[in-house]
Each structure stands twice: as structure tokens, then as C-alpha cells.
């Protein structure tokens, strides 16, 4: 279970967003993606999760190890906090719902409808799914959005613990998260300078 | 003009409608093609190598 990314390019629509991204992660590693708005953090994470096309280079990771959380929380407003997690527990076939609820500080909220949570509470509920999935490779897009300082630290701890247990985490963030073992990758260096013409419609002229 | 008898209206209408549709499509195709050509030329001039 490793992640090997070699010279990958990403496109979004017709636009080439990233070029030549490479990195290797072994169990226990974590990688923080940084870079200004619009550099391509979300795009790269979607590609890694198998939710976007690989426009060039090779990607070597087992999709069955991946758990993904994006800008959206994937939370059902009409279900309670516990029901939301119980559903994902069913999907990932585990029974850790209660433990996870406690770990993410959701015990008090557990019978509330998710629609009535505040922004940060929803976020926490969304992230709890990562632990529940039991999967080894976590891909998280700005996980601490809307979280207060206390819960930001809690998430950072969760990630550290996950990696300490042999997991891998790749996350994007604009904040400084306290994950001591994490490497940082600044995506700004992969902004395509001279775009290679990936589109077949740009090869040759007519 | 051939002798069309009592069905003259029918036959002529059928031909007119069909030809109108065909010419409409041809004209549309032509216009779109020209517009695309012009757009592409402009883009090549702006951003071409």
C-alpha cells in the first residue's frame, strides 16, 4: 500500500492546470498540498481519488484503499448525525459508529438532524466518515474549513494518529496544521509554464 | 410545368416545404461553418504559436 505519482498532468475542462507532479508516499507518510487559490489542489485530489481524468503521467495507488472528502460535506440534512454515520458504516461495512462519534466530539449532537448543524459541526460530521471508512489512504480537500481552533487541532491529531497507524494522508490546506511528520508540496512550482498541447485539436495545423 | 391536375397544391406544397427545409439546413450549415472559420482564424491570430 503505497502511493506513487509520476510526472502527472491534470486538466480541468480544456485548461491544463498542473504539469509534472511527482511524489512517493509510503505507509505512515503524509503530504500537505499548498498553493494559492486556483493552483489545482482540488483538481489533483480528485484525480488521485479517481474522480478526474489523468491527462498524462502515471498514477499508482489502489483505489480500494482510498477515502475521499471534498469541499462538500456529503452530509444528508434529513438524517440525524448518527444515522448519517450509520449509513456510511453500512457502506464500508464496519460497526464503529459510536466510537467515531465520540472521537469527533459529536456525542452531544448525535440525535440532531444534520441539517440543523452549524457549518463547523457539519464539517466534523463529514470528516468522521474518513475514520469510519477504515481505509488507508485519506484524501482530504481543505478539511479544516469552518472549524474553530480546538477542532482544527483535533483533526490534525486524527490525521497524525492515522499515519502513525500506518496510514497515508494527502490533504490540501491554506492554514498551518500541526502534523509534525507531514511533508509539504507547494503546487505553485507545477503551474504549466509552456503548456504542452494535450488536446489532439492543437496538434498540427489546419 | 407539368400537368398536376387536382393535386397541384399538394404536390407543390410538398416540394416547397421539403426544399425549404433542405435549403434552410444547408444555409445554417454554411453560416455556422463560416462563423467557426472566422472564430478560429481570430484565435490563431491571437494565441497561435
Amino acid at each position, binding site marked *: 500500500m503505497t502511493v506513487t505519482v509520476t510526472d502527472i498532468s491534470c486538466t480541468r475542462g480544456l485548461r491544463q492546470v498542473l504539469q509534472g507532479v511527482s511524489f512517493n508516499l509510503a505507509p505512515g507518510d503524509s503530504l500537505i498540498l499548498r498553493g494559492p487559490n486556483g493552483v489545482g489542489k482540488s483538481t489533483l485530489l480528485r484525480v488521485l481519488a479517481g474522480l478526474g481524468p489523468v491527462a498524462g503521467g502515471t498514477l499508482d495507488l489502489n483505489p480500494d484503499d482510498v477515502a475521499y472528502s471534498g469541499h462538500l460535506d456529503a452530509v444528508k440534512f434529513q438524517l440525524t448525525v448518527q444515522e448519517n454515520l450509520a449509513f456510511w458504516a453500512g457502506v464500508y461495512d464496519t460497526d464503529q459508529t459510536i466510537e467515531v462519534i465520540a472521537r469527533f466530539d459529536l456525542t452531544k449532537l448525535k440525535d440532531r438532524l444534520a441539517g440543523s448543524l452549524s457549518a463547523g459541526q457539519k464539517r466534523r460530521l463529514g470528516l468522521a466518515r474518513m475514520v469510519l471508512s477504515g481505509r488507508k489512504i485519506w484524501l482530504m480537500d481543505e478539511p479544516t474549513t469552518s472549524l474553530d481552533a480546538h477542532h482544527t487541532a483535533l483533526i490534525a491529531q486524527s490525521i497524525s494518529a492515522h499515519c502513525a497507524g500506518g496510514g497515508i494522508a494527502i490533504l490540501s490546506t491554506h492554514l498551518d496544521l500541526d502534523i509534525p511528520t507531514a511533508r509539504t508540496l507547494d503546487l505553485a512550482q507545477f503551474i504549466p509554464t509552456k503548456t504542452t498541447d494535450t488536446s489532439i485539436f492543437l496538434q498540427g495545423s489546419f | 410545368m407539368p*400537368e398536376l391536375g387536382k393535386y397541384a397544391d399538394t404536390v407543390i406544397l410538398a416540394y416547397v416545404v*421539403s426544399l425549404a427545409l*433542405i435549403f434552410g439546413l444547408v444555409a445554417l450549415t454554411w453560416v455556422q461553418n463560416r462563423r467557426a472559420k472566422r*472564430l478560429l482564424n481570430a484565435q490563431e491570430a491571437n494565441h497561435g504559436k
Partner: protein
Amino acid sequence: MSLWEYANPVKFMRLTGRLLPFLCVLTAVSLATGIIWGFFGTPDDYKQGSTVKIIFIHVPAATMAVSAWFMMLVTSLIWLIRRHHISALAAKAAAPIGLTLTLIALGTGAIWGKPMWGTYWAWDPRLTSFLILAVFYLGYIALWKAVEDNDTAADLTSILCMVGSVFAFLSRYAVNFWNQGLHQGASIAVNKEQHVDNAYIYPLFLSFAGFFLLFVTLVFVRTRTEIRLRRAAALQARSL
């Protein structure tokens, strides 16, 4: 050397660029002679009178309308399997032509129906299935318009075309089952006794050729248009 070479836009543009002048002339000549011969140079039918002249437009248009969908099915499958962009664009280019041909068949049929059956429209299976075909074309075109990402649009329309073909076929069957109609059956069957008179057959074949060539020419031109638009969009995207 294989046909797949022309899945490259440059090659396709070059080839069609060379072919198109001839195709245009050929189309114009065969379509014009077929239609003019049909209109001016054929006798009246003893039963249908001069309305029989409508056949020179009606039948080729109807046949090509169905063929166009079939061509779209084939190119869609090629896109899904081999991912040649030209193939998807050719399908996109063919749809409006197919729709127009369907409308011509419907229009001439309706106009013909007035003197023959006393009404412009009846829910005859043949007519009905053409109406359904028109709706399939509409949905297909609308889907191309609605999806923003090009490749996604190509995927989705191809899948729709595939599934649509199956259901169009089922509908044809269902409609026959539902209602026995007024419309005549195939009359150019080769080894059938009762077939179209020789006086009609030659202009009819010319007209068939004309509609076929018209379809091919227009598909080429429209595909070229789409290719240019793609290139323009790609150029613009590169500059942003």
C-alpha cells in the same frame, strides 16, 4: 494504413477538404436531376394522380432519416470504444441533419396524407414511429447543448444514442402491435411482384443518391465546423 488514421483532425480536415468540392457538385447534380426528373418527367399514377411525385422526396428522406440515426449509433460506439474525437463530433454533426430529414419525411407524408387518407395526420404506426424518431433526435441534440464539458457530453450522448436505439427499435415494434396502419409497405422489394413502375424507379434511385450524398456532404462540413470550434476553444483555453 487504416481507416483510423482519419481519426486525426489534421488528416480528416485535409481529406475532407479535398473531397468536398467534388461531393458538393455531385450532390447538387444528382439531387437536382433526381428531383427535377421526378417532378417534371414522370407520369401520374392511375390511383394517386400527380401526388405520386412526392415519392421522390418522401421515400429517400425517410430512409436517410433512419440511416442517419444508424450512422450516429456506429460513430457513438466508436467513440465509446476507441475514443476518437472525430467520431463523436461526426455523430454530433449528423443529428441536426437527421432531424431535418425526419421533418421532411413527416412533412411530405402529412401533405400526401391529406388527399390520400383525408387527413394530415393519423396515428398510423409508420407515421408515429417517425414522430418518435424526431423526439429522439431532439433529446439527443438537447443533451449535447446542455452538457458543458466536451468529453462528458460525447460520452453521455453516445450512451443515450446506444440506449435510445434499443428503445427506438422496441417502440417501432410496440407501435405496430398497438395499431394496424394505413401506410403502404415497402415497395422497392427486389423480388416482389408488385413493385414500383419503371417510369418511377430511375428518378427515384437518382434522388436516393442525391439524399445520400447530401447527407455525407453535410456531415463532413458540419464535422469540420465542430473541429474548428474545438480547436478555437482549445487555443483560447491555452491562453488563459
